[in-house]
């Protein structure tokens, strides 16, 4: 096994420079793989650099100038990454747009950043851009990779990516040194990436990240969690997101691990299993979905397999809690299960963005997946704290990187205050928004807006919630809605939740069932249903969810218990603006849209009539007429008789 080695990012201080260096030194080493037509196609560092070079020179030929902005929209593909670095090689900035974003969101970002050249993967994305018509005047060219269905358009802005590359190849042949000259002009402090912030409350802002500091920050991360050139990484996080920029581009450039691109979103699990990545970062909800999926499948398995599974989990958990491994459970259950989930070769795994249920956390650790929590912000080049492998604690997010300083501002008597951070990879400011920059950055420190504290005994950072999201009831009880929501979501049957209670007399909840699991449960319990709305309204489902809520209530102080709840007729959806793209609840939107329902939760009424129209992704509309029943658990949140309910469950 070779040692991890990092590129000298002091010398090679922009993405294109590191790429050229890697291509020069290790031309035939594999840099990327993409599954296409059922086969993993490999790209060496030299292929990677050549593609970037051709795209860059093509863009130059089409008049792209320093300081302009390139954009990418679509699924994760090698071309996406190549286009981004090509833009930076010419002294441009790049912006990634989420593939599932709606046309008007794309409109906003394109106009805000004044995009000139945009890479759209396929017809779906091209349609989105063409739909905007003349609302995006800055866009000069739209490149596409997958020509299927696009040939029918004759928009002069459209150009095939291969044609762009051919154009570039022509220019390279004519003046071979042009590209190197362009790259050499690039400086560490140039803004390379405009990264969208998640925008829980408003339109996304664009954090200006500079190439040099970004690479430095990647080195700081890798020092804590090294990767080898032979390590595999599967790029399944959205590329516009800061962490995928860090992993798929930053880390792979700095330590040359192999980045793998799956064939389609649908094939992700199977492709990941084929690759067996050495590192994964998944959102807490994805980790939970994995466990939920395993458990659902087990419900379908034979009695013998179920027994074996339960026995193995119990044994493995016990061994884990005693700080050892149980070889029999590993052999019979956990090793095959890890392989099945594509986690067979994982030497480092991470979760971040929100809390992960301790049960889930323990399950993976017991399984032998070295899961760790990380924490960070887009503005600070992503993660800047991480657990040490031998010091994982479910309640904390670990210790800061070497280049990171953290302090707590305005602490209350218990030490809880605002987390304020300074890192080497910190952003320059928000693009074209000095006001927002001044509000968040003071004397070079980023005010994160998160509430937390540093645990005195070991210096671990503990994150509680957004300060702005801490709520207070009329009785003056402070609580974190997200904290309670997460507790509820640890139930496999509950998908999304919204906890209400700010400036109200007591706490209530709007819950969304997790359809696939509840549907399976309904099948097994002979509960008939037609669709989501109908299933949510079934009294049997209500009873079952009520038991789950009571169990969560039992773990909360009385004032923070959910007193009333109802099951919503639809899932909360990012397309409706109810969730952010990273699936955080937008409380303002939810509060407005469901005002009627929320009022009912704080009245004496036992149900609320809903007559509304929902629009599906394909544009068809459907009318929903239903009555939502409100369950009142009483002052003690129904905890008094949990024992009995527990038995019934």
């Amino acid at each position, binding site marked *: 096994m070779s040692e991890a080695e990092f590129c000298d990012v002091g010398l090679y201080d922009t993405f294109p420079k590191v790429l050229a260096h890697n291509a020069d030194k290790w031309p035939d080493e594999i840099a990327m793989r993409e599954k296409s037509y059922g086969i993993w196609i490999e790209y060496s560092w030299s292929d990677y650099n050549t593609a970037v070079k051709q795209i860059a020179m093509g863009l130059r030929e089409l008049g792209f100038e320093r300081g302009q902005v390139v954009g990418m929209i679509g699924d994760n593909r090698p071309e996406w990454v190549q286009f981004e670095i090509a833009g930076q090689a010419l002294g441009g900035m790049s912006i990634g747009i989420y593939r599932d974003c709606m046309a008007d969101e794309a409109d906003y970002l394109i106009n805000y950043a004044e995009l000139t050249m945009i890479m759209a993967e396929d017809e779906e994305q091209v349609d989105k851009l063409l739909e905007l018509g003349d609302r995006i005047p800055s866009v000069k060219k739209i490149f596409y990779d997958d020509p299927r269905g696009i040939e029918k358009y004759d928009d002069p802005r459209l150009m095939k990516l291969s044609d762009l590359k051919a154009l570039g190849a022509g220019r390279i042949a004519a003046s071979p040194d042009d590209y190197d000259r362009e790259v050499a002009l690039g400086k560490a402090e140039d803004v390379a990436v405009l990264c969208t912030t998640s925008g829980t409350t408003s339109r996304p802002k664009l954090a200006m990240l500079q190439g040099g500091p970004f690479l430095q920050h990647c080195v700081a991360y890798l020092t804590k969690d090294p990767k080898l050139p032979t390590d595999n990484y599967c790029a399944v996080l959205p590329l516009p997101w800061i962490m995928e920029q860090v992993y798929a581009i930053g880390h792979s450039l700095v330590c040359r691990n192999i980045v793998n691109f799956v064939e389609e979103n649908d094939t992700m699990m*199977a492709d990941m299993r084929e690759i067996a990545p050495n590192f994964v970062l998944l959102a807490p909800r994805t980790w939970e979905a994995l466990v939920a999926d395993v458990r659902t499948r087990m419900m379908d398995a034979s009695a013998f397999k179920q027994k074996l599974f339960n026995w193995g989990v119990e044994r493995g958990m016990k061994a884990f809690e005693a700080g050892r491994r149980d070889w029999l459970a590993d052999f019979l259950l956990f090793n095959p299960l890890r392989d099945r989930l594509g986690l067979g070769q994982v030497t480092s795994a991470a979760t971040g963005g929100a809390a992960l249920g301790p049960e889930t956390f323990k399950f993976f650790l017991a399984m032998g997946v070295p899961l760790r929590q990380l924490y960070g912000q887009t503005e600070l080049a992503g993660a800047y704290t991480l657990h040490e492998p031998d010091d994982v604690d479910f309640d904390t997010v670990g210790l800061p990187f070497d280049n990171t300083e953290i302090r707590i501002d305005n602490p209350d008597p218990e030490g809880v205050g605002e987390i304020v951070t300074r890192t080497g990879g910190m952003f320059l400011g928000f693009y074209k928004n000095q006001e927002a920059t001044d509000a968040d950055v003071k004397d070079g420190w980023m005010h994160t807006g998160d509430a937390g504290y540093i645990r005195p005994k070991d210096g671990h950072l503990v994150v509680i919630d957004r300060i702005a999201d801490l709520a207070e009831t009329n009785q003056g009880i402070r609580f974190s809605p997200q904290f309670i929501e997460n507790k509820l979501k640890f139930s496999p049957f509950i998908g999304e939740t919204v906890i209400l209670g700010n400036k109200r007399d007591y706490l209530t909840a709007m819950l969304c069932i997790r359809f696939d699991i509840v549907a399976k449960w309904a099948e097994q319990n002979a509960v008939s249903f037609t669709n989501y709305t109908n299933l949510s309204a079934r009294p049997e489902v209500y009873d079952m969810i009520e038991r789950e809520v009571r169990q969560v209530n039992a773990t909360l102080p009385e004032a923070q218990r959910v007193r009333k709840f109802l099951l919503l007729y639809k899932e909360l959806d990012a397309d409706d603006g109810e969730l952010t793209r990273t699936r955080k609840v937008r409380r303002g939107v939810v509060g407005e849209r469901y005002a009627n329902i929320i009022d009912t939760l704080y009245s004496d009424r036992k149900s609320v009539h809903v007559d509304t129209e929902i629009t599906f992704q394909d544009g068809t509309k459907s009318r929903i007429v239903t009555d939502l029943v409100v369950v009142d658990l009483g002052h003690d949140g129904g905890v008094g008789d949990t024992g009995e309910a527990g038995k019934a469950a």
Partner: protein
Amino acid sequence: MSSIKEGEVLLSVENISLAFGAVQAISNVTFDIRKGEVRAIIGPNGAGKTSMLNVINGFYHPQEGTITFAGKTRSRMLPHEAAAQGISRTFQNVALFKGMSTLDNIMTGRVLKQKASLIEQAFYFGRGRSEEIEHREFVENIIDFLQIQAIRNQPVGRLPYGLQKRVEFGRALAAEPELLLLDEPMAGMNLEEKEDMSRYIMEVREQFGTTVALIEHDMGVVMDLSDRVVVLDYGCQLADGTPDEVSASQQVIDAYLGVSHD
């Protein structure tokens, strides 16, 4: 591939009659299919639509009439002959190898294109190897075209019905047919699956230049997709023409859509 050009007659059936004992399934039906068009055969249940497809690809042998395909006239077609000539089909009830994967099922569509000997195939050398690679590539193109990458290695018996239909469609395409016969390609599908299937049928024509003859019950689909429609009722030919002509024909309205009683 035949030398017939776009828009010329690719297949014509003339005065076809078919009886099973005393039951007259088809009587005296004549129509043609032009290269590059989408041709629909519609009619109420028991009108003889599937029988007509079976006559075209040689499952049934008509007592009377002739079939002309690619310039060659004959009184009966044989199934293997039809396949060799470039006619492939899907079935009303999916007829796939349930225990085999999607990939393998579609690969079977390439069987007529394989020239390698049994030995070469069994030991995977010579033509056996090069052909396998070539055919796999073709099949992967179809998998990509039909967007079924995610089920590539799944046994088709475990797939939902809509996907099985898509796999069967893929297998028919794998034979690189000149004429593709689709027997109720959208039966039992939901709206979204129907829309997908319609798109694939349109794209097959654009991308592969395949001529399509289909039987379908969903009138919306038929009217949107097809260039010309032939209408059968109790084995007799009621009408033949563009969707507009056919849907304007009083005879068709009476027989197929029901006599109005206003």
